[in-house]
């Protein structure tokens, strides 16, 4: 569904995915039909899945060993802190290898840990989840965490003016609160609606 057809000719490259390919044939990115025929691709994930899992397993073994080595070398670190530190190195390397890190922005996935919902936007455009902010920042005040640089691209953001960036977090046991303007105030307020 997400992998485009690999057909190409002198008019360009087909950009249709498998699910929407068949009725029209090959189309280039301008929408022009450049050839007839069905979806074709030499990369099928089912064939590659075993290798992908194997690679993950090998890397996991290596990373786990590194985390354990780090906890042995620096006794003060907990396993979580050591894992965060090793993860930051791998993450930086990954984003350096694949492309421009500024394009990797998501508002539904934390691209640092791939697990939590991102909540805290940084000046560089990336959005992090609370556990990642806590792992890579320093406690500044009771409910404020100071982040020296963006963990996704450490080197590029380390000495920028925007950093250290202060992030307010909700205290652990505080409920969700909303500001409500009610009663007397309501009648005094005029709300301007701008046409979209």
């Amino acid at each position, binding site marked *: 569904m*997400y*992998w*485009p057809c*690999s057909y190409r000719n002198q008019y360009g490259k087909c950009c249709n995915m498998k699910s929407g390919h068949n009725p029209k044939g090959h189309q280039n990115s301008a929408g022009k039909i450049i050839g007839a025929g069905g979806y074709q691709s030499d*990369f099928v*994930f089912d064939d*590659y899945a075993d*290798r*992908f*899992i194997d*690679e*993950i*397993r090998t*890397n*996991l*073994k*290596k*990373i*786990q060993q590194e*985390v354990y080595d780090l906890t042995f070398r620096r006794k003060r670190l907990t*396993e*979580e802190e*050591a*894992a*965060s530190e*090793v*993860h930051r190195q*791998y*993450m930086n*390397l*990954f984003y350096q*290898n*694949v*492309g*421009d890190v500024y*394009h*990797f922005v*998501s508002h*539904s*996935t934390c*691209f640092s*840990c*791939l*697990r939590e919902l991102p909540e805290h936007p940084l000046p560089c455009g990336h959005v992090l989840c609370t*556990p990642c902010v806590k792992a890579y920042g320093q406690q500044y005040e009771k409910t404020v965490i100071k982040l020296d640089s963006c963990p996704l691209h450490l080197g590029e953001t380390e000495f920028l003016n925007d950093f250290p960036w202060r992030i307010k977090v909700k205290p652990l046991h505080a409920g969700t609160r909303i500001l409500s303007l009610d009663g007397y105030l309501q009648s005094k307020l005029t709300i301007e609606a701008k046409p979209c």
Partner: protein
Amino acid sequence: MISTDEKLQVFLQSAFDHFSQNLNVPFDFVKEAVKNNPIPRDIGGNILKLAIAVREHNHFADPYDGAKIFSELSNMVASCLMLTSARQSFLGELGLRCTLSQRC
């Protein structure tokens, strides 16, 4: 990692449940651990989102080189799994973590 008393209690109870039903089959520790701390369904979705982002924004010689994309991704995903298991303090060593990686 070493189990906390709270976590050990959960395992002890499931082991009692298991052996009250069946004495011949060994208690599967790993299966129980995965049952107690399931990897959320959306982690697969999150990996997919990252894979799509890599496909769109990579600067490889061939931007549609699937094998290259996933081999780069494997390092990141492995590191994320390690981080997740450390944050959730999943018990056990590599065996369990491999099981987790398979489930994704």
